[in-house]
């Protein structure tokens, strides 16, 4: 295996594109180095993107935040403006692993690992985040939910990699939240999860909603039909009942050692409901 620390995004993309063997990106390394150690992947080339200017920065942009693909969880949680603006997007990311893992792990890495249970992903989807992708032909942007296509697989073409994640300006009276269920208190993989972002008007009526469900399908579910149940309501008990039922109905989980499909369907509805209540409180509605 060859390790190269790229110094520009173009160089990294060219290296990834030119490699005839398996080429992988090294961000925080908390997935890829474990997978290499376990013999699950044997890359011929590892391109370290953290020396590329800007990739370890959190920048204000158009009222939102652009988070470099090399920014760790430990760095992002200490960015107070981001933490107070998008607590839901942050709390999912910060649930991943230990203090040591947070010292290295990146949002972009969690997204590209493409686990159905990736904790950073539903909160970003709910927040309407996008990714910026560098490829051999230049840059392109796409919604977060278009990156994972199946467990372990992404829509990124050869030579493409994520350089940043963008969270847009947060509208007034908007709150977001992420909840997951695990059978223990710390450091486990989600059995089911939900990210919710709600916007209210001055009268306390919900005007916009995004609901993302995790670990209940091969990729994160953008639950438009569940979100619709809240729009035009005060997110009261009746609306939350409808949200819960819709989230349960939209889930397409598998049964495995962490939970049966029925259990996951039930759980994800409850999580969506509770996350919506937190999002509503955070929106000040």
């Amino acid at each position, binding site marked *: 295996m060859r390790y190269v620390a790229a110094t520009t995004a173009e160089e990294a993309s060219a290296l990834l594109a030119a490699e005839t063997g398996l080429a992988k990106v090294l961000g925080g390394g908390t997935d890829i180095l474990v997978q290499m150690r376990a013999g699950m992947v044997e890359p011929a080339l590892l391109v370290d993107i953290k020396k590329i200017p800007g990739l370890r920065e959190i920048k204000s942009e158009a009222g939102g935040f652009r988070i470099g693909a090399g920014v760790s969880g430990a760095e992002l949680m200490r960015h107070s403006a981001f933490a107070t603006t998008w607590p839901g997007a942050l709390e999912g990311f910060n649930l991943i692993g230990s*203090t040591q893992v947070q010292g290295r792990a990146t949002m972009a890495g969690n997204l590209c690992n493409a686990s159905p249970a990736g904790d950073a992903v539903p909160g970003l989807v709910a927040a309407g985040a996008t990714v910026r992708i560098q490829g051999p032909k230049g840059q392109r942007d796409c919604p977060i939910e278009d990156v994972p296509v199946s467990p372990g697989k992404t829509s990124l073409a050869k030579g493409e990699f994520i350089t940043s994640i963008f969270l847009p300006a947060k509208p007034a009276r908007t709150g977001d939240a992420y909840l997951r269920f695990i059978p223990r208190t710390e450091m486990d993989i989600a059995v089911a999860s939900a990210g919710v972002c709600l916007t209210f008007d001055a009268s306390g009526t919900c005007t916009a909603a995004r609901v993302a469900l995790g670990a209940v399908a091969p990729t994160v579910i953008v639950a438009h039909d569940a979100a619709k149940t809240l729009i035009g309501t005060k997110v009261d008990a009746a609306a939350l009942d409808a949200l819960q039922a819709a989230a349960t109905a939209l889930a397409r989980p598998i049964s495995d050692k962490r939970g049966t499909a029925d259990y996951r369907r039930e759980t994800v509805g409850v999580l969506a409901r509770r996350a919506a209540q937190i999002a509503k409180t955070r929106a000040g509605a």
Partner: protein
Amino acid sequence: MSTIHVSTTINGAPTDFVCEHDETLLDVLRNRIGLTGSKEGCSSGDCGACSVTVNGRLVCSCLVLGAEAQDAEVHTIEGMADGPTLHPLQKAFIEHAALQCGFCTPGILVAAEALLKEKPEPTDEEVRYWLAGNLCRCTGYDKIVRAVQAAAAEMRGV
């Protein structure tokens, strides 16, 4: 494949080493530099026995490549004591018998030092959450938490 030449700083001392492309920082520290305080437990970032700081950030050195240490500041357990004078955490771990076999101890000390730098007066819950990535199979953690709190108090001058 050729090796990589890396210039870094370890415990304040400018250090150069060569390593394989896929060699972890933990293996470099132990096998090339002779700093065997950092331990290899799981090699997958679960146990924390290999904890070090890189540019002030607590990480598992088994999940860092040696090559990534270029131009970095690495701090290991070997840099904790000031010559023969133990760090307050090290003294507290001995006084509170916060170890039995000792395998996890270097990693826990490095992790606890990073915590107290950021949070000089943590709650017990904060200590437990911060150290959740450091596994100890002997003590049951209670003595570790008490030792960290005792050292924190001493360092605050209480």
